[in-house]
């Protein structure tokens, strides 16, 4: 063939993670907050879709020092879970199934519901005549892996809508 294949034959198979992009993250499970390194294929160029191929503990992290528990070390199964929902859905009143809906229609539908409920149930003054500006028709709960920043945005939205019924995983 005109060139020597022995070098190629002698080549040791490269580790799967030798060409991955490493991202520093924090485990989303318990509140130890172990450092995790997420290995993705794809170099983040615009035309490349990243895919998680490996997750390991971050040895630099002062609390976890590279360790992860069974849940942390299998985080790839969480990210790549085939059961992830990938499009918005709606279940109409009385229906027994989901229907696909576009994001625009979902947001418009929710905004309309929210406004109608707020206008219908808004209490400007309580029975004692005190200004209360609340919407008892609305309730909202927030989760345990929402970021601090999301939580702040959520507090702003809740205050804007006058939602008195609000709680989070912190209670239960």
């Amino acid at each position, binding site marked *: 063939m005109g060139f020597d294949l022995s070098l190629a034959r002698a080549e040791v198979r490269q580790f799967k993670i030798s060409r991955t992009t490493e991202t520093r993250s924090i485990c989303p499970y318990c509140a130890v907050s172990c450092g995790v390194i997420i290995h993705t294929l794809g170099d983040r160029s615009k035309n490349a879709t990243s895919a998680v191929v490996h997750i390991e503990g971050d040895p630099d992290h002062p609390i976890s020092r590279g360790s992860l528990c*069974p849940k942390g070390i299998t985080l790839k199964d969480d990210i790549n879970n085939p059961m992830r929902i990938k499009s918005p859905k709606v279940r109409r009143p009385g229906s027994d199934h989901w229907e696909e809906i576009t994001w625009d229609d979902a947001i418009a539908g929710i905004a309309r519901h929210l406004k109608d409920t707020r206008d219908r149930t808004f209490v400007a003054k*309580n029975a004692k005549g005190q200004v209360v500006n609340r919407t008892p028709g609305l309730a909202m709960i927030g989760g345990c892996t929402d970021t601090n920043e999301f939580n702040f945005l959520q507090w702003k939205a809740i205050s804007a809508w006058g939602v008195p019924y609000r709680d989070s995983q912190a209670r239960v």
Partner: protein
Amino acid sequence: MTNGWVDIKNADVILAMGGNPAENHPVGFKWFMEAKRTRNAKLVVVDPRFTRTASVADLYAPVRSGSDIAFLLGLIRYALTTGRFHSDYVKIHTNAPYIITDKFSFNDGLFSGFDGNTHQYLKENWAYEGDPKTQAYSLDQTLQHPRCVFQLLKKHVDRYTPEVVEQICGTPKETFLKVADIVTSTGNAERCGTLTYALGWTQHSIGVQIIRAGAMLQLLLGNVGRPGGGVNAFRGHSNIQGATDTGGTFETLPGYLKTPTAQLQTLKDYNDSGSPTTLNKQSWATMNYWVNYSKFMVSLLKAIYGNAATKENDFGYAWLPKVDGNYSWMYIYDDMYRGSSMRAGAKEPAPEGFLTFGMNPVALGPNVKKMIAALSKLKWMVVVENVEIETAKFWNAPKEYGGAPPSQIQTEVYLLPASGFAEKDGTFTNSARWLQWKWKALDPPGQSKTDQEILSRIFLAVQNLYRKEGGALPEQILNVSWAYTNPVNPDLGEVLKEMNGKALADLHDPKDATKVVKTAGQQIDGFGQLMDDGTTMCGNWLHSGVYTEAGNNAQRRNNADPTGLGMYHNWGFSWPANRRIMYNRASADAEGKPWDPTRVGIQWNGQKWVGDVPDMKPDAPPGTYGAFIMLPEGVARLFAASLNDGPFPEHYEPVEAPVANPLHPNVTSNPVALKFASDKDTLGTSDKFPIVCTTYRLTEMYHYWTKHQEGGVLNELQPGFFVEIPEKLASQKGIANGSKVRVTSARGSIEGVAMVTQRLQPFKINGKELWQIGLPLHWGYAAAKGHTGPLVNFLTASVGDPNTWTPEYKAFLVKLDKA
């Protein structure tokens, strides 16, 4: 946590109660083992089960679920009667010398001030003696006055002898005495011990008082504020600490400012209610840091309302919703179920629209049958999630949960695909109060969007509707500032900057008005720079310092540890003020010398406090201020009039009590426990449901998420639900390991595989043999194929703690049968 995960390695004694960290916080638990390995620390585990944590303990003591207060008050009694407590610490850092009014009393299970009609206490009976106006409070530094806190405590705990502890908790007296000996060995300057707990303490109708009893023990031993000490709550989720800090509950605004109540009609009334009067009755003064309340509040109002917040309009205070009563978890679903609520003496509508972001209330909340019936009454609901959880398809729940058929449920449900942790950036706050930034690794799958984009799109769409159509008080919505560079999908770094706060005008040095500390537009360095005149804004004063002109401090990754104590001041950012140990002024004596020179929290070097970031004015010499700067008296409270169920903890049985209270059978359970009265709120009694049941987690599973991982390793490790049953109980009932059993409470009934174990043993309580069984909580009707299971909360009751309104999941009554 007052301290940090790594700090556990500095302890001489670790008392682990109300939690199973080896199982539930396994990587944090490394630091327990490090303390054992390098300090020869003693690990004492007190738990109803012989858990994975117990299996590596130096001493394990069994205790019946729900009886922890009796055990802890027994330890306090032991410390006080044997003198094994840190008396120098107690005298300067606690309210032990304070004299209490003669209106305080405790008789037959009730503190003075109990109102039998409302089932509430009038707390003014529990005050310090003296006149709040003239500040003429009385103290007895010798701790001899019969009504000083120290003597009242001594009298209160006197009933909790080792024999009584055995009678209530089922802990053999000899084992209890061994625990007491080890734990109280830290009641001095030389040694230091830590206390760790988790949901095994919080999820009781006496949860707060259990924690208080633990904190009081730590104060008496002089272990609070010191490296290797503290009261350390292990939170169960990656960012519920952050949710708690950022106004995630109805009663708080960001930074633990209080949600305004209806009677606080003006900003001044509101600010005054948050700024307590200083009590200067120690030999030193108090910083009483909440006197800065108005600065935090006005800066928060500037963050939410921007330019619309002016001095003339009370900075928009009127737009903030005001509450009348309780709107927490169990009230949400109770009002939803009943269709209305009474507020300020009048009927108001119940929630008809409901949004849930990353939450699964059907699985998470108590009394699933009531929950599903409540959600069925909604007009609409929005579920933002990664997978199709139980809540999203509550309208199609299995029949046994009692829901109506889908055709009769008129709720419109939107299920919106969100991004997981790896698909978004932003900060999580861990149990040790560390804010750590995580970087986004990849895009979410399919059409999924980040939570911040979903919320922003809804917010902006609602704003547009009000702009176009008007409606109820549009200014409440239109004046909220959403001025992000990309309002549809705000950059979270930009939001974190907003939370940190910035100067809106030039800020001058309070000591030298000619000096400009910050020019308008600059990020502030910390909450000490906040103002209440509208010249600063700050979304969360407690987080201030996280994103300064130096950059995003939550991203810091320098793991140098010059102290050797595991503080890591240049890793991430720890609220408040990057302090790693709270109350660290108490790590030193009256002169500012550390109790233990090998474990320095902070110390006075003649000019300033050095060590950790001081929990004290940095240049205030010892003797200027008390160590507990957030309290008006400046000292820690062994006696606290602020709680709803008593100034001292007292043993009460769970609401579903397996036995009458051995101490006061006429007041068996917490007399002010939270209960509900709907037709779905049934409670069981021990004649029909004789077995104590508790719920817990497994290390291989995570709450109600990991069961959804199709093809996942974790579903192979823990494939399904089981019921943990003591061997002797199983043999009495003819239950074989691996056979099917049925567990039934007054609310529901579930089936599972019997896991017969020696880890649970019978308890002898007040002469009666009592059994306890355990249920891991991870399953439900939505899961990967082959991994569905019953919801354990089908069994639990909507009852809870009167301070936190957290449900009592950890002790309820069931019966057990072969299936």
